[in-house]
């Protein structure tokens, strides 16, 4: 009989090792899934995890890594603060879309004016858009005690409809001959988010992601606010006695997550995506949930997790073209990773004991 025995304090070793274990287990289970789809599992896993970094086209694909990791890290950092405090914002995808729309709208309003101030103004608008969208669940939660999980998720569907309205209506390119989609930002230098170093894939979003990782690390390890966030998550009652205002924490965590997601949306739409279109969003807001957990809700961990997840995106695309692997397979693969991660976390908090008799 296998029994779980609670550890007196969480194991530091397993806290670090469980993500590694989860990745290995996911590779094995994913390999089985690929084999079931009639593909060579070893080749598939190599195509996803090895070829983008060291394969034939690595010079190009390595750059893509930062393109994909940037938004994932930005969003995941924001989410992780809330997850630490027990605030479940799962609507980052909606906040990301709204940030992109608000920021793009500001930029397009100035078209074709050239000024250095336009991009910063768009960024502010993007952050604002994401922040407003996240404030809806925050205010409903603090005022009316409404479940933030359901509200933030419902708002994703609403944001998607707003996006459809924007790309076919109020932000549609007036010179686009009626096709949906806004003006292209790559043809509008003042509002463009270009690659900063050629071939690196680094744009302002990547820079912002790195700065956010540093800022979040300092916040959590050095600042009283970071301490309060951790306290509220680990011991809510103690936090209340210590004078932590739970309502303010909800507003702050959701607001930060929304602002960061909004910024990520703006960087994406002005850079890699290039325009507001009905499907410019590819689910980074949801994948960022996995990134936040894979990174152990820790800023430096999220940096690594974001890069790894970006790798699975790029590798997944490669596997889709080279091996004819369905693109949905990679989504299932990412979901599987979260399962194994949560499961292997049991080793952090519990010891596994084998006993002779059945426990009562």
């Amino acid at each position: 009989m296998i029994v779980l025995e609670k550890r007196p304090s969480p194991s530091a070793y397993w806290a670090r090792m469980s993500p590694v274990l989860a990745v290995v287990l996911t590779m094995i289970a994913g390999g089985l899934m690929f084999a079931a789809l009639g593909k060579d599992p070893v080749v598939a896993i190599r195509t996803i995890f090895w070829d983008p970094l060291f394969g034939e086209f690595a010079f190009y694909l390595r750059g893509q890594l930062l393109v994909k990791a940037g938004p994932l890290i930005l969003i995941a950092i924001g989410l992780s603060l809330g997850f630490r405090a027990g605030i479940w914002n799962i609507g980052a995808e909606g906040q990301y879309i709204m940030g992109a729309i608000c920021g793009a709208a500001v930029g397009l309003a100035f078209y074709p004016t050239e000024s250095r101030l336009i991009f910063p103004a768009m960024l502010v608008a993007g952050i604002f858009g994401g922040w407003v969208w996240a404030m809806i669940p925050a205010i409903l939660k603090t005022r009316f005690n409404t479940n933030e999980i359901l509200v933030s998720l419902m708002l994703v569907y609403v944001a998607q409809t707003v996006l459809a309205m924007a790309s076919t209506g109020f932000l549609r390119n007036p010179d686009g001959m009626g096709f949906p989609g806004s003006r292209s930002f790559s043809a509008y230098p003042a509002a463009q988010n270009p690659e900063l170093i050629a071939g690196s894939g680094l744009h302002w979003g990547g820079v912002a992601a790195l700065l956010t990782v540093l800022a979040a690390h300092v916040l959590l390890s050095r600042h009283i606010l970071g301490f309060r966030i951790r306290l509220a998550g680990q011991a809510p009652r103690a936090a209340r006695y210590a004078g932590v205002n739970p309502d303010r924490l909800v507003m702050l965590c959701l607001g930060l997550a929304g602002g960061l997601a909004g910024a990520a949306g703006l960087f994406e739409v002005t850079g890699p995506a290039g325009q507001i279109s009905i499907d410019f969003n590819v689910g980074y807001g949801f994948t960022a949930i996995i990134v936040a957990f894979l990174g152990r809700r820790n800023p430096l961990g999220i940096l690594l997790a974001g890069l790894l997840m970006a790798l699975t995106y790029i590798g997944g695309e490669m596997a889709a073209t080279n091996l004819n692997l369905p693109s949905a397979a990679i989504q299932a693969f990412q979901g599987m990773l979260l399962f194994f991660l949560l499961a292997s976390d049991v080793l952090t908090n519990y010891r596994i004991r084998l006993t002779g008799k059945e426990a009562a």
Partner: protein
Amino acid sequence: MGGIDPVLLIAALIVASVPILFAALGELVVERAGVLNLGVEGMMIVGAVTGFITAVETGSPLLGYVGGALGGAMLAAVFGALTLGLLTNQVATGLALTLFGLGFASLMGQGYVGIKPPLTADVPFGPLADIPVLGPIVFGHDPLVYLSLGMVFAVQWFLRASRAGLVLRAVGESHEAAHALGYKVVRIRFLAVLFGGAMAGLGGAYVSLVRVPQWVDGITAGAGWIALAIVVFASWRPNRVLLGAWLFGGISVLQLNLQVAGSVIPVEYLSMAPYLVTILVLVIMSSGRGKAALAAPAALGQTFHATR
């Protein structure tokens, strides 16, 4: 506006509410047992695809529903093993279930896009179906509609009047006390989770076999999340789940009818309506001196680890 027939609207409303009714009833039992499974959307969409595939391959819609229920229950079993066996966080595991389910369903459904499933026939009520007004509303449906209504009463009876239901509620209110009385908390919860998964899968299969009826990616479009909201709306009571499902079925049918009838309200605002109304309903139910919060099972979402 003139082109909408109220009788047909009510008949369509009853059909539209079936998927969320199944899923919400299942989740209600799960939550009354003290487990919060946020993976309803994932279980629904997996049920939708497994049900669709089974129905297409066997040619039997009945087997399709069985396949849908099994698919949902299989995913629920993963959730049960993780949250009850390995004591993972229920919120995070539920999210993982949905993320995995969406990818898995889209993977499974690859070869089935654009295929018509076998038709689910209406129950033959003979001349009864020809009664004006009453006929289309009461006697013009397929068996699943009547099954879903029957489940409302079955779940109601089970929770209120049966011994097993009493034990299940005890587990949901205080797992420590139930454990001390000798009830197998983990086993009872696991069975409840399986039931919830089967119901969600059945609801999903109804979407892909009757409501749409074909396979497209993301076919459930948030119905699972609306089902979760309905459980809160219903203050964890089966008869109110029926009310909630009709409310949302009504809104989704009405907005579709308005779109077709060429309403002055833009299409986009209409398709937002079900989600906005969900939020509104949640706000109303959650405020008012926290009534809904008081009705929630006391041990909801808490991890149980038997120390003795």
